[in-house]
């Protein structure tokens, strides 16, 4: 399909909205809901843990004689978490098995939600990269055309505009225009995703087949004696290690962000800046760059699909329930292990969210630069009125 520049500018003059935004918002929402669920589970488990172990003295006041009369004006019902904790505390005293099952179910619920969050995260990465690629396709020619028609003076003014508008980030933005940096960013991201994909493969394999603890549980469904069975401890460490590894893989992407130390770049002359812009655009418009971005998106999608496949084939609910049994002891629920797990995985997911923001920032910077170019270069203003004049000069693509 050939799209005229005038049509493109008309389209952009209305808004830069894209159907990809819908997918991105969906992924973000899934991630947020999963994290909120995990936090609610974590609070419940913490309260049950403290209630169960009789550690009320960790709170400031344990004056049981000041029992509060819950009649008016305070409504009669207390919150669910509180009731759960209190009920659970009683059950631990009276019927250990019920409380153990309850803790197991909470961990199962958490594992389920966290898988949802992980899938949402990778969908988000895939979507953002798709948007980046999409924007390059859309804006590449427009930006190239604008820059090619810029005088050195206009280029210098544009640079100063960026610097004034973004302060220190102006220099960062300048660094972004350096194709070598961009290329390195994409290369690092690609490598990190390769590592992550391999790590996840190994993780799933180890969960499903690797450790004796899991095969034992899958084969027999027996509840182990956590104090006396060394396999329980081994499995707990293994599970934690796996998540730690996962977090490290995600954090590896962080290395690719643009550090503030890069702001020591000297301001370029107009001619240098223009040449730099042209080099950047040449790189971004090249088939190599587009292939690179596509490949990264495919890797992100592959990871998301891998999780989805695993979920579908194995039955996530069933597996989550099985995994959670490793957190049930023979005598009472192992709240501590479950809480540690929640904490580690929640941290890992929050790190993932941070990485999403870096990727967004790359994309947003690209958009800001494109917008500045179009707002500051005569003849490149993105409004439908000038579209006709540009149409006469610009080639269709």
């Amino acid at each position, binding site marked *: 399909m050939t799209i005229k520049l005038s049509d493109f500018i008309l389209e952009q003059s209305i808004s830069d909205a*894209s159907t990809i*935004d819908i997918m991105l918002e969906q992924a973000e929402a899934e991630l947020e809901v999963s994290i909120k669920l995990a936090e609610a589970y974590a609070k419940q488990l913490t309260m049950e843990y403290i209630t169960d172990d009789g550690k009320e003295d960790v709170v400031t006041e344990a*004056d049981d004689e000041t029992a509060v*009369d819950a009649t008016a004006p305070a409504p009669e019902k207390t919150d*669910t978490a509180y009731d759960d904790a209190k009920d659970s505390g009683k059950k631990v005293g009276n019927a250990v098995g019920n409380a153990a099952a309850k803790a197991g179910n909470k961990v199962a619920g958490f594992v389920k939600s966290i898988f949802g969050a992980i899938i949402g995260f990778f969908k988000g990465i895939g979507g953002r990269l798709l948007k980046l690629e999409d924007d390059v396709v859309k804006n590449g020619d427009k930006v190239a055309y604008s820059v090619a028609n810029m005088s050195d003076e206009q280029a210098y003014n544009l640079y100063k505009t960026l610097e004034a508008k973004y302060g220190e980030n102006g220099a960062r933005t300048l660094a972004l225009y350096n194709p070598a940096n961009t290329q390195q960013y994409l290369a690092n991201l690609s490598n990190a995703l390769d590592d992550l994909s391999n790590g996840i493969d190994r993780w799933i394999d180890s969960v499903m087949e690797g450790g004796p603890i899991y095969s034992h549980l899958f084969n027999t469904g027996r509840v182990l004696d956590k104090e006396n069975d060394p396999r329980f401890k081994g499995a707990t460490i293994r599970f934690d290690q796996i998540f730690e590894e996962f977090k490290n893989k995600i954090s590896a992407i962080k290395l690719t962000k643009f550090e503030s130390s890069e702001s020591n770049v000297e301001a370029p002359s107009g001619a240098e800046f223009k040449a730099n812009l042209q080099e950047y655009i040449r790189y971004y418009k090249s088939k190599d760059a587009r292939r690179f971005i596509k490949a990264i998106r495919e890797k992100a999608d592959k990871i998301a699909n891998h999780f989805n496949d695993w979920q579908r084939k194995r039955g996530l609910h069933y597996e989550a329930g099985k995994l959670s049994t490793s957190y049930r002891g023979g005598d009472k629920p192992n709240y501590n292990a479950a809480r540690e797990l929640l904490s580690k995985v929640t941290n890992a997911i929050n790190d993932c969210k941070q990485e999403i923001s870096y990727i967004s920032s790359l994309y947003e910077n690209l958009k800001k630069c494109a917008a500045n170019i179009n707002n500051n270069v005569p003849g490149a203003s993105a409004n439908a009125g000038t579209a006709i004049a540009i149409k006469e000069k610009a080639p269709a693509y």
Partner: protein
Amino acid sequence: MATKLSELMLDMETGDACMEDAYIASAKGKIAVSHAIFEAAYKNYELPDDGQFVCYVESDQEGIPTESEKAAGTACAAVGQELSAFLDATVETAKKIKTSAEKDLKTLIAIGKKVGVTMSESFDKEFATPLGQEICSEGRLTLSANKFMKSKNSCKIAKAYTKGCVYTLAAFGISVDLPEAVKDFVSVDTAAGTVDSIKKVESKLSDGGRAFAIGDVGTTNIATASDITDLALAVYTCANVADAVIKACDGSSKKDAIANVNSFCNGDGKISRTHHAINGDIKKYMSNLEKIGTTVASGFTDAVYALMETISKK
């Protein structure tokens, strides 16, 4: 039902995370997704039907209509989804606030017992006012944590929450039945009136969404008698308003209200300025609602907890 103070304190100390947070996040996500759908459909609506545009190719793949009339229908339906999600978020936030404010109230009652003030018929005159006076009988109280709220902040939050809820529910034609004590504290007309056009929805929603905005809320470690009285009144107000919101949206009333509002979102082949205005502002309103929900749930609780902690050490 009697509640142990130690258990209340434990609940407060472990944070305000609750299942309602997930529902609120879900409603927020629904608003964001619907907003994106509106934007994509609006673009198609504005462009000539016979042009060749990148967004048409994308829309075909994603099932967003490219023909103007149908695109208008999709955009307006998205506004309907945003509205219903905002009502969901308001109700779920009310549930979160109710739970949290009830814990705060129970703790305040326990503090009252400690200083010899007991609850009776009139919350403000016979409990809140003497509570502040009794605690500060020897002058201002210095708290161990810098988490207390001055009167101006606690009152601002309670009034903003009350007005925000009343106006927002009015946008859906739902009246909120508030106790007289709350009406005395916050002067607000609770009658919803008839909602028979999208313009009326937008006007009342705008009042509600803006009313939820509270700006920055500072904290202090110094409490005066009136600060304590006003904090108690603010907690009492929020608990009752939240309860009233939940009751007003109980049963079929929420469903009926959403159906009524959605009937104004069929588009008729056009996207009105009003639909555009709702789509443009609703994310901001959601952000205001989210902030006030968090502030009541954690800010009030932190303030009450700090008070309890200090009084226990005296």
